[in-house]
C-alpha cells in the first residue's frame, strides 16, 4: 500500500480496559517500532493519530473516549472496519533497565515498548482515579491516583523520584499529559538520568508536509512523536505551546481548554 493511503481493516477483537478505554485488535500485520503511530480513519467521521499498542502479531491500538471521534472509535464492534495508514514517526530507543512513566492514555506506546524488555524495567502509571487506570492486570505495574483510590495518592512523578533513588535506571521513557512529562524531565535532569518523551500535537497529514503539528523547530509527526531530553531541552515550545487547528500558537492551557 502507498504510505499515506488508508486501508480498510477489519476489527478482530475489542477489549474493554476500563469504562472509557478500549483496545482494538485489527486484521493487519505491520512492521513498526514502539512509539510510532498510525492514522485511524472512521469513514464519514474523522481521522486521528493513534499510538501503536502492539504490532508483534496483529496491529493493536488502545483508544480513550475523549471527544467525538474517539468516542465513536470506542463504539465500534468486532467485524466493523476502519481505515489504517502508517506507521509514522520515530519511536523510542530500546534500553533495558529503564523506568516507564505513563499518564492516562499515554500508556499504550509504553506497554508496546515494555513487551520486548524481558521484564528488565519498571512501569509507573498515573491517573485521576482508580477506574481511569488501564493495563492493571500487569502484575508489576506501580500506580498513583490523584484521589488515592488505588496505589500512591498523588503524582506518578513522586513514584518516579522514589524509584530513581531506589535504583538509578539507565533511561526513563514517558508518555502522557505534557506537564507531567515536563516534571519527569526535571526529575531526570536532577538525577542525571537520560529520558525520552512522546509528544502530542494536532495532526493532519501525519507525513510531515502540512505543518499542523510543529513544536518549536520540530515536526512532531516526522521528527517525533518521541524526542530525547536533549531535543526537548532545546525546544522552547515543549511544555509551553501548541498550535491550534488554525495554526495559532496557544499556551498548553489554552490548547487543552484548561483541561491540562
Amino acid at each position, binding site marked *: 500500500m*502507498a504510505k499515506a493511503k488508508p486501508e480498510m481493516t477489519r476489527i478482530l477483537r475489542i477489549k474493554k480496559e476500563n469504562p472509557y478505554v478500549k483496545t482494538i485488535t485489527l486484521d493487519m500485520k505491520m512492521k513498526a517500532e514502539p512509539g510510532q503511530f498510525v492514522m485511524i480513519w472512521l469513514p464519514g467521521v474523522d481521522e486521528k493519530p493513534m499510538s501503536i499498542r502492539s504490532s508483534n502479531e496483529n496491529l493493536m491500538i488502545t483508544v480513550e473516549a475523549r471527544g467525538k471521534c474517539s468516542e465513536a472509535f470506542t463504539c465500534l464492534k468486532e467485524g466493523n472496519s476502519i481505515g489504517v495508514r502508517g506507521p509514522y514517526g520515530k519511536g523510542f530507543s530500546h534500553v533495558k533497565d529503564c523506568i516507564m512513566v505513563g499518564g492516562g492514555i499515554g500508556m499504550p506506546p509504553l506497554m508496546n515498548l515494555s513487551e520486548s524488555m524481558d521484564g528488565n524495567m519498571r512501569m509507573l502509571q498515573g491517573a485521576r482515579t482508580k477506574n481511569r487506570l488501564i493495563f492493571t492486570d500487569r502484575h508489576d505495574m506501580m500506580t498513583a491516583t490523584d484521589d488515592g483510590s488505588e496505589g500512591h495518592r498523588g503524582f506518578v512523578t513522586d513514584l518516579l523520584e522514589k524509584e530513581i533513588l531506589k535504583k538509578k535506571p539507565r533511561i526513563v521513557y514517558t508518555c502522557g499529559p505534557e506537564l507531567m512529562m515536563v516534571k519527569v524531565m526535571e526529575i531526570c535532569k536532577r538525577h542525571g538520568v537520560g529520558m525520552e518523551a512522546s509528544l502530542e500535537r494536532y495532526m493532519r497529514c501525519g507525513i510531515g508536509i502540512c505543518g499542523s503539528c510543529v513544536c518549536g523547530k520540530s515536526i512532531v509527526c516526522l521528527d517525533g512523536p518521541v524526542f530525547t531530553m536533549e531535543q526537548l531541552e532545546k525546544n522552547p515550545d515543549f511544555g509551553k505551546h501548541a498550535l491550534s487547528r488554525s495554526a495559532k500558537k496557544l499556551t498548553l492551557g489554552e490548547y487543552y481548554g484548561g483541561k491540562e
Partner: protein
Amino acid sequence: MLPTEFLGIKLKNPLVLASGILGTSPEILIRMAESGAGAVTMKSIGPVEREGNINPNIVEFDCGLLNAMGLPGPGYKNMAGKMEELKNCPVPLFASIYGSTVQDFVDIVKFLREYRPAAIELDISCPNKDDGLSFSADPETTRQLVSEVRKHSGSIPVIPKLTPNTSSIPLLAEACRKGGADALNAINTASGMVINIEARKPVLKYKKGGVSGPALKPIAVRCVYESYEATGLPIIGTGGVTTGRDAIEMIMAGASLVGIGSALYYRGLDAFRLIAGEMEEWMKNNNIDSLQDITGAAHG
C-alpha cells in the same frame, strides 16, 4: 552555478518552498531555509481565523498526493508575532494570501506591507475552499483583483498563483499581467478525488482535494510554458518537481524559480539539498554555467 536573481531579489538557488508545505510557523520556515531552500513561502494567510477541514485532509495515490487542508490559519490579525519572528529568516520570504473579496486581499496586503516580505503571492487557486477559485473563473475578475492589490502593495512585487482548473492558462496569465502582476506562480493543485472502494467514500472529508506531486508535473510544465509564452513575466514553476531533472525541465519551460512542495514527502526534508545537487551535476555534465542560459530554452 545556481545563484539566481528574481524580481531584483538575490537567491542562492532557484528552489522555493511552496506555500502550505510546512509553512505554518516561523521556526519551520527558518528550518527549511537552513536546509537549503533558496526562498520560502508562508502558508497562505486569510482575512480571518479558519480551522480548515476535518481529517482526513490528505491521501496518497499511486503517483501523487491529494490534499484538502481547507486553508487553516490564524487570520492576518493574529499574524503580527509570526511576522516579527520571520524577520530572522535567512533567505527571501514570500508571503501568500487569500480572501473571499477584493477587500480581504487589500486588507491583508496593507497589514503585510510593514513586514516587507520579498513578494506577496495571491492564492486565487485553492480548490479546497468553496470560493477558493472564484477569482480564477473569469479573466476580467482576475485582472481587477490583481490591479487593486497591486495599488496597495507599494514596492512589494505581487505574484498571482495560477490554477490548472481553467479553460485557458494564457487568458488567465494575460489577465494577471494586465492587472500589473510582477511575476506568476504556476501552478496550484489540480482538483481531484480519491475514493476508498471498501469504505465506499471519498477519502478526504472535503471529498475533493488538490492533486500535487508527480502526477501534476506534465500539467504544470505545460502551464509554465503557456504562461511564459503568453506574458513573458518571470515565473515560479510549481508542480511535481521531485528531482534536479524535473527542476531543469521547469526552467526550460520558462520558470525562473522552481516551487518545491510534495517533494518534501517524496525525498524527505533534505529535498532542497538533494535537488540542488542534482541540478548542479546535470549542469556540469552538460556544460551549462548559469540557469539564465537555459531559462525558457524549450521555446522556439
